[in-house]
């Protein structure tokens, strides 16, 4: 396990933090980590308290469960409650509340809702239940969409006719653009998502540097990866550079995975627009099945209601997803909204900023306040903002 220790080496972390402090000087920096996996690492390891107070990490929209709007969950429930339908979903989506409860509750009421690990498991269920129709609830960014694509290609090859996909796949670039265009937030750079980039590579992020003049560093998921990426962002800024850099090159190839990208192109096309929780409608931000795969499109096969529901008033997931507020600044955080009884999506997924903060960050923060660490004072600011 020496390699692991290498990435947890306290001396290396101290050296990086000290170098970050030197580079940052007394200027204020705000960097957004796009990916929910990064958010998890940051809270799990208390990284926000390792950084100097003038270098702030802002949590972004990269949690696929978190960005699904309530109406799509209601549509999923509508499908799940149809007789003769077996509705299959990843575990994360089962607990997401719609306006009539969650898929888990639909299951308790008698709907045939099944948790699957892989879309290929859904396809297997379809082949084993020829008298039923099996729907797969597809969610996720470019990390997950190729898996759905392969499953659809396989379904076509096998000639399966009782299988369809309720497609909610989204793409990472449009929400980044939406955030960069938003007047709410001033950002100095981005930590790019790790696993999404294994598929898309580094090229799609060039607009961040070329159009918006912000640096972006694709980062891994170890605590030292995050610190190294922050260091790389600051070094770029201090050296007057603005580039797409890859801190996670041990996993992310420059060109991504051409085979996965080709499969995406074979099966999907861009939707003209798609609603994101908290971010509203974003054009060309999501995928649907193309004409060649229309027979597998649940939205074509069923006369779906296409429900639109406003987010619960008390819930501030939208602001959390845009990085405008921190989880603890939401009015219902930790009181009405907890991982056991979530109101908003950000409290459901372990990658959601609220769940990650509720489970880990709170304690780091309370400790930081107790010992008077420099990044602690915003507690008072948050409390007075309520």
């Amino acid at each position, binding site marked *: 396990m020496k390699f692991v220790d290498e990435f947890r080496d306290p001396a290396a972390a101290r050296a990086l933090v000290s170098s970050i402090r030197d580079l940052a000087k007394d200027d204020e920096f705000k960097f957004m980590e796009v990916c929910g996996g990064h958010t*998890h690492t940051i809270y799990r390891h208390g990284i926000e308290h390792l950084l100097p107070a003038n270098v702030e990490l802002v949590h972004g929209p990269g949690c696929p469960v978190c960005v699904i709007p309530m109406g799509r969950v209601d549509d999923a429930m509508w499908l799940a409650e149809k007789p003769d339908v077996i509705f299959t979903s990843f575990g994360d989506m089962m607990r997401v509340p719609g306006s009539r409860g969650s898929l888990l509750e639909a299951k308790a009421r008698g709907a045939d809702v099944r948790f699957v690990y892989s879309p290929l498991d859904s396809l297997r269920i379809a082949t084993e239940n020829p008298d039923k129709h099996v729907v797969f609830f597809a969610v996720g960014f470019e990390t997950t969409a190729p898996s759905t694509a392969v499953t659809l290609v396989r379904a076509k090859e096998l000639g399966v006719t009782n299988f369809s996909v309720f497609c909610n796949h989204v793409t990472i670039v449009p929400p980044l653009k939406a955030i960069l265009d938003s007047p709410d937030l001033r950002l100095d750079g981005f930590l790019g998502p790790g696993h999404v980039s*294994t598929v898309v590579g580094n090229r799609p992020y060039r607009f961040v540097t070329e159009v918006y003049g912000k640096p972006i560093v694709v980062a891994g998921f170890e605590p030292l990866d995050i610190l190294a990426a922050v260091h790389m962002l600051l070094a770029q800024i201090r050296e007057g550079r603005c580039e797409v850099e890859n801190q996670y090159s041990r996993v992310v190839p420059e060109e991504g995975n051409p*085979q996965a990208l080709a499969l995406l192109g074979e099966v999907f096309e861009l939707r003209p627009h798609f609603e994101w929780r908290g971010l509203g409608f974003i054009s060309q931000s999501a995928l649907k099945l193309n004409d060649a795969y229309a027979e597998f499109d649940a939205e074509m096969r069923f006369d779906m209601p296409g429900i639109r529901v406003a987010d619960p008033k008390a819930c501030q997931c939208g602001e959390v997803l845009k990085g405008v507020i921190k989880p603890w600044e939401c009015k219902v955080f930790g009181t009405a909204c907890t991982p056991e009884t979530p109101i908003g999506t950000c409290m459901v997924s372990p990658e959601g900023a609220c769940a990650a903060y509720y489970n880990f960050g709170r304690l780091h923060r309370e400790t930081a306040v107790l010992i008077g660490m420099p990044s602690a004072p915003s507690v008072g600011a948050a409390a007075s903002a309520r």
Partner: protein
Amino acid sequence: MCLGIPGQVVEITDAAGHLAKVDVSGVQRTISIRLLADQGVAPDDWVLVHVGFAMSLIDQHEADLTMAAIKQMGQAYSDELEAFEATAIV
């Protein structure tokens, strides 16, 4: 959701169907290697497994690192492993 869990390829079970048996923490299941079809995945290789698909070829260094990080996630790790155990693709 974007969790990738390291697995070691045990055998290619169906070359035409791009299926391989992998070992994740002692649990062996069949996954698809179609996304890496042109990368010549072979027994003993380490891959990052996401929702039943090999996402990328990694070395043992990265596998150890990722596994240690995921184990630290506690519940998320046990959920992922439990889910992996439940998978049974054709």
